[in-house]
């Protein structure tokens, strides 16, 4: 039995859409731009409610990022929306110069991140975006785990001054976090307390980590599961506190091993507290077409992979 339950599965992108609509009602300075993916990003409710504050830019992502930077001048809080691949790799230099280096208050909101985009294949399944964004000085990087958390994060980033990369996805996943949660940027959430191994997960892998914890418990292994929704700035204190207890760690993410959450954790631990670590992540590979479940299985991002990694890392202590 998992320690968390859910009544329905929902997509994180819909959490973004709901959060955008709500923050749009609260703050008249919130504006949104979309590059021809309004329904996919679930921005249609905002577009309908606030037509004067919604900008359809067409299939022109570079212009969208530049326009968003310009809109901040005069006090607007722009949210850009497109798929994660077109939100990052396609517009890296625009984000770097016009947003991050220029310290513009732009929220880059990216859906369909990772393998779970599914059948469209590797052209659309970016697995490098966290790395690209976290390398930029001045950029906050957030990857949420369910509908409620994505909604809360969307509202929270509007109230945070500075550039943010907000990453979420397409499939319906268990909606288990509280609807009224307080989303604190940069604060890890300890989901289960344990003593044998720490499992640090982000995004869609958080629920899988919770499932892994339950199965590990049946095998007599006590796992502490931490939901890292903010990859940058990383909650170093929470991670070090957990590692001090468990002495080993598994990181889990729908991203390349290079440049992802695991890489950030490894950097922290090598500096502050060298600790055995196993990585559940895509290992230097592009994705391919398939259903989300098939892909997560083929590329080793399933609950069983986390369990296996946990057992392996415990032996390395």
């Amino acid at each position: 039995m998992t320690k968390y339950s859910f009544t329905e599965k929902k997509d994180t992108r819909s959490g973004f859409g709901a959060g955008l609509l709500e923050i749009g009602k609260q703050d008249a300075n919130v504006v949104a731009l979309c590059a021809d993916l309004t329904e996919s990003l679930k921005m249609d409710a905002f577009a309908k409610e606030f037509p004067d504050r919604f900008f359809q830019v067409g299939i022109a992502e570079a212009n969208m990022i530049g326009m968003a930077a310009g809109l901040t001048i005069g006090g607007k809080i722009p949210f850009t929306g497109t798929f994660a691949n077109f939100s990052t790799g396609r517009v890296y230099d625009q984000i770097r110069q016009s947003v991050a280096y220029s310290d513009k208050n732009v929220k880059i909101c990216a859906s369909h991140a990772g393998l779970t985009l599914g059948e469209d294949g590797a052209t659309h399944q970016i697995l490098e975006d966290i790395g690209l964004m976290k390398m930029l000085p001045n950029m906050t990087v957030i990857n949420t785990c369910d509908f409620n958390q994505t909604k809360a994060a969307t509202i929270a980033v509007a109230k945070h001054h500075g550039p943010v990369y907000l990453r979420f996805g397409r499939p319906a996943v268990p909606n288990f976090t509280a609807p009224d949660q307080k989303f604190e940027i940069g604060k890890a959430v300890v989901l289960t307390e344990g003593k044998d191994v720490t499992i640090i997960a982000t995004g869609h892998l958080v629920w899988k980590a919770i499932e892994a914890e339950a199965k590990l418990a049946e095998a007599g292994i006590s796992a502490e599961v931490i939901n890292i929704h903010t990859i940058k700035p990383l909650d170093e204190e929470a991670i070090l506190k957990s590692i001090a207890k468990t002495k080993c760690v598994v990181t889990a993410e729908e991203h390349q091993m290079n440049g992802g959450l695991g890489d950030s954790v490894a950097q922290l631990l090598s500096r502050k507290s060298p600790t055995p670590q196993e990585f559940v992540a895509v290992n230097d590979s592009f994705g391919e077409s398939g259903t989300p479940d098939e892909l997560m299985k083929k590329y080793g991002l399933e609950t069983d992979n986390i369990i296996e990694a946990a057992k392996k890392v415990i032996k390395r202590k």
Partner: protein
Amino acid sequence: MANISELKKLSSQVRRDIVRMVHAVNSGHPGGSLGCVEFFVALYNDILKHNPKNFTMDGKGEDLFFLSNGHISPVYYSVLSRAGYFPVSELKTFRKLNTRLQGHPTTHENLPGVRIASGSLGQGMSVAVGAALSKKLNKDNSVVYSLHGDGELQEGQIWEAALYAAANKIDNYIATVDYNGRQIDGDVDNVLSLGNLKAKFEAFGWTTLEIANGNDMEQVISGIKNAQTYLGKGKPVIILMRTEMGYGVDYMMGTHKWHGKAPNDDQLKAALGQLEETLGDY
């Protein structure tokens, strides 16, 4: 209108600043800077409704200017300082460690007058369009201006922004192209021809105007004021401004070779001999 002879005096001083700045650090871009002196002097001393002594990022109620071809920072910095945004003496820090006057303009060091980083080309029109939309949302009737190199128009993002601005009637915005026909590798026509640039912008739905000689102060001022008469008419406005790269220094004219090269000591002396010190060197 400001006194033309005063603006011409300022232009001569700005040209001295430019060649002295790039000479001092043996780097930077004098060619395009010299060619755009009249434009910047006119803009900051006769055209813009702005507040140099009390710079704010949001610039509410003020006209805004965005430099998209950031490499011509010497002319930008000289004119900003001489308009009162920051002390003229700061020009001596250009491109030196810990300076606010970075090689390419940035907001990162909080230099008054700069609202966006530029240098990587092709991004400024999108930013200007966004700022123009922000003005419209704020019911702020002031105007957004931008400057672009002609070589810069080879960047695809410019045409994304051009398409958007016309389709969405961004009519509180005047873009200008420094149409000097030259870029680092040679003549624009030989590197990658822009073809009929006027026809291209007209086809994109812009009001497309021309300044035949962008190194003639009267023509620059009347050209921009003419462009202002097209504001609020449902179309973005662009001025194709013919200039001479290196204008004012004889050996820098008629070639692309001074795009990004600083004069040596003798060359500096020769240049300064052609440019009257009117307002005092920094």
